[in-house]
């Protein structure tokens, strides 16, 4: 089953344009629409640095930082015979800065929504030449970090070594886990998810625009109804969630 994803992204963009905070997201979609249409002839779309509203300034670390921009990169591949996305990767980058005395810190926050469907070698035994994960990777999962974060933190990063400052300081630490199971998302639902998590006020306004609501509703029906049905099968539940016993 295929579906007119670029047309739906265009509908989404028209709805996002009603809300000033998401008009840049609409601009990003419109700018890339021609590319999305041509990519979708192969049932895939790739988005680079789609502008998102910055998250609401609440509970941010480090304290005193200023948010400047947020972006979404994605790669979505659909296979007609599958009812779920073959590849659905979403990488979110939030940028900010902190002025602290004579120092200026460039800040980034990275999180990603990942899928392993396209990489079955991760699920095969090691002796078959595969590279299985030691930790369970739910089929669609949320995870912090990623390659973009690794690249950002590779140089000039604090805390890190070598270190030019002295004394005793505290820092926030991050590990690759946990990988939290997620629902499958297409780019429309991913944008909706990002908006919901960054600013509930904006998201609630959008959800009271019937034009926005209907695009999201159609996408949820298309992707999630078959997914909920497949969850009845234990084999699928194991693939989606990982090491379940029942």
């Amino acid at each position, binding site marked *: 089953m295929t579906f007119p994803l670029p047309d739906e992204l265009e509908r989404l963009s028209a709805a996002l*344009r*009603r*809300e*000033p*905070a998401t*008009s840049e997201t609409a601009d990003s979609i419109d700018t890339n629409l021609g590319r999305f249409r041509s990519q979708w002839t192969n049932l895939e779309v790739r988005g680079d640095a789609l502008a998102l509203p910055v998250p609401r300034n609440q509970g941010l670390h480090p304290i005193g930082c200023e948010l400047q921009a947020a972006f979404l990169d994605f790669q979505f591949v659909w296979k007609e015979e599958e009812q779920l996305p073959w590849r659905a990767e979403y990488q979110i980058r939030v940028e900010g800065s902190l002025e602290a005395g004579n120092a200026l810190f460039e800040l980034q926050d990275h999180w990603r929504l990942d899928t392993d469907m396209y990489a079955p070698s991760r699920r095969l035994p090691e002796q078959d030449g595969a590279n299985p994960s030691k930790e369970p990777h739910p089929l669609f999962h949320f995870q912090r970090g990623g390659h973009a974060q690794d690249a950002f933190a590779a140089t000039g990063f604090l805390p890190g070594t070598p270190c030019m400052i002295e004394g005793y300081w505290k820092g926030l630490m991050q590990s690759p886990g946990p990988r939290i199971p997620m629902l499958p998302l297409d780019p429309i639902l991913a944008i909706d998810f990002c908006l919901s998590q960054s600013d509930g*006020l904006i998201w*609630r*306004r959008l*959800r*009271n*625009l*019937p*034009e926005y*609501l*209907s695009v999201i*509703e159609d996408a949820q029906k298309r992707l999630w109804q078959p997914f909920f049905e497949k969850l009845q099968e234990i084999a699928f539940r194991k693939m989606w969630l990982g090491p379940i016993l029942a």
Partner: protein
Amino acid sequence: MASWLLIDDSPEEAASYAQALSDGDTFIVEPLSVNGALSAIGSDKFSPAGVLMDVDLSNEIGQQQTGPGISQDMRVAQQKQTLPPFPIVRFSLRDKVLENIGHDSSSDDIFDLKIEKDGLSDDSLRRSVRCKLIGVRQIYDVLGNDGVELADLLNLDPELWMRWGSSAFESDFEVGDRVHLRASPLIRMMVHPGLLIDEDILAFRLGIDRTSTGWSKLLESLDEYKYEGVAGDCFVRWWARGIEEWWQDKLAADAPLAGSNIQQRTEMLAKSFEGLKALTMPKGSMGDRPWRYCLLTKELHQEVIPVDPSRAVRIKARSPMPSWLDPLYAAFGIALQNPGDRRLDKDDLKRLQPFARNQ
């Protein structure tokens, strides 16, 4: 008190409309010939409460003029401040508008309001038109004061404006450096649903029949979301996003108001209010999540009927609509009755075609 002037090429017709619209000493409309208007505009004493401008002035003797043409000259003079600020309202028969303006949007921004002469024999319609004119004049009066701020005009707490208002509206308002330029977004906000909605649209969104015995009680409970700013007595409106907030925060509804159908809306409201009757979608208007109105029914029959956008046909606006105004729709059944209307969205007509036999 200054009078409104009705500029028209037909003296008898002008006198008749002026008399019909006037209301004793409280609201006076005086007819004025085109030539009379041209010489008055050239003088430095032209300062009416407002101008009602006919579109087609071809019956006037002498050099031919048009309503939009004279109106544009007055706006230029207001920009140069050789004329004082006053509202200019297009006032014409619908047929004459179609004949002289049609799909041409170039005169849209000139006028504060567009009123059709058709149907003004109806007393309630005359009252409604009078009320709008008074409201528009009030807006001009307040904007004429120095240093007036948007928050004061709207009489809304800045925190609430952040939640219920629009930064795009604010910038459209702020960019105006003349009274008529600042009045324009304000008047559009009052007249067209978007940030503010009138009682008809409010009832559609709540899924309630306005004739219900419990309707007035429900309205009372929404008082804190009522528009209380300039011309609030003339334009009785509610903050659309305030109503949405009330639905989710005060009534603690699971789903957004726009995402609930009539039955879900009425069931939710019945927990707190009595005597409410569910809205019935009229024949020709499909769907069960009413949110907007049918423009065609309003234009053709001065009747406002509910529309569920997911089961309706988008209408291309003659001029681009700002993001703070709601898009235009036609009920599908009504759209089918008007196949020659080029504004109807072809994709929507195609999308809804399977439902055509039931209309």
